[in-house]
């Protein structure tokens, strides 16, 4: 499904990862952990072409990440960062932002689909008319996740996404992302999240080490 082959990442000439491999099968839930600045987030960013790879290659279902395939690869993955970007003044516009792009114009979701997705993430439908500046960090995080779910994405890259969530919201998010059909590659320090994953990978001295839960 996702294959990181001989990956080397240097940021500002500082080596973060050297010649590492990671293969994620469809439906797997993988968490990467390690000390701050060790390259966890950089690995996720490199996989979607947000950061340059120093060496190695990334493949998605046989499609090698390159300048020609980068848009296709990005269209298959939902990338949610620690500080979500909503990109619109109110929540409804933020949720519908990707559907204003040529790539998704024809798949704009109906109201019923939006309400159901919000409800699954423990968000009230009244949030749709609120300003994105007035909602909490946890709500922003769930709106970003809802947006990815509305795009029907099944591969999620999640970088510390539960840090701003209360236990109930966190459980709602986990219920959505830990469904069988979803492939999840994540970075987290949250014990509940780590426990729910079926693979734990640790970064230690520029290497990836598989830890058995």
């Amino acid at each position, binding site marked *: 499904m996702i294959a990181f082959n001989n990956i080397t990442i240097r940021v500002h000439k500082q080596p973060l990862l050297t010649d590492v491999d990671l293969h994620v099968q469809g439906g797997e839930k993988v968490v990467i952990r390690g000390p701050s600045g060790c390259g966890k987030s950089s690995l996720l*960013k490199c996989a*979607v*072409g*947000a950061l*340059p790879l120093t060496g190695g290659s990334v493949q998605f279902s046989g499609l090698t990440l390159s*300048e020609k395939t*980068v*848009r296709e690869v*990005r*269209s298959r*993955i*939902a*990338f949610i*960062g620690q*500080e*979500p*970007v909503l*990109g619109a003044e109110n929540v409804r516009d933020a949720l519908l*932002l*990707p559907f*204003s*792009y*040529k*790539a*998704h114009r024809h798949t704009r979701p109906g109201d019923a689909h939006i309400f159901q997705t919000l409800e699954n993430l423990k968000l009230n439908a009244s949030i749709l008319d609120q300003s994105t500046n007035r909602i909490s960090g946890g709500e922003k995080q769930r709106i970003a996740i809802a*947006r990815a779910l509305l*795009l029907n994405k099944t591969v999620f890259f999640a970088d510390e996404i539960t840090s701003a969530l209360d236990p109930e919201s966190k459980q709602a998010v986990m219920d959505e992302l830990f469904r069988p059909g979803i492939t999840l590659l994540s970075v987290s320090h949250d014990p509940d999240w780590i426990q729910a994953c079926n693979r734990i990978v640790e970064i230690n001295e520029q290497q990836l080490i598989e830890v058995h839960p």
Partner: protein
Amino acid sequence: MMVEMDILSTVSMYALLLIPIGIFIWLQLGLVKETILAAIRMTVQLVLVGLYLKYVFQLNNGFVNLVWVAVMMVAANVSVLGKSGLKRKLFFWRTLAGITVSTLIVSGWFILVAIRPDPFYDARYMVPIIGMILGNCQRSNVLSLERFYSGIRKNEHEFMTYLMLGATLKEAVAPYLRIALKSCINPSLASMATMGIVSLPGMMTGQILGGAMPMEAIKYQIGIMLCIFTSMVIAALVNILLSLPVAFDDYQRLKPEIFQ
């Protein structure tokens, strides 16, 4: 006829500079040296231009006029790139094309359709009109290019999010393009809306001082204001669009090496 200023009167104008220089010294702004240098540069440049224009006007040759216009455009382009913080080497031809296209379309319309001087390349019309349009384009281009690229650089995470949500490069840069265009258009809109009430524009003032009837000067002023506004919008948009292929790599990431 206009009352002529002799050399002594012109020199006496420099006495006014003692006031801002005094304020700078009092407030310790550290701008005294820059002010004196800027005043010297202005004087030397204007004297040289004055001498040159004297011959350009006397010759009134289409080719010479065009060469002068080309020099003005190159100078404006160099200044735009220098002040916008972008590397000249990478963008020079693209921004020059943007400035040239916008200036020529608009000034061509004004000179060939509205004024129709004979000959059409008459230096008395061509040089000052293109100069005024270019001068204003230069200011707006500095603003728009600087705002556009610094906006993306400061909000790289946001920009990447748009790409990850399926935006093409043009769709992802659209929010920064809107901010950049507004930042250069808004001051001009405000200036247009208050023209004649808050400020008496330079071209009109110059024509009235030169002996033209106020209504004639106003017609020219309206023409030049509309030209300036239109060329500013065209140049800002074309410059940004033409610069995109140089500024982003094949993965649509902003190249850090484009900045000075």
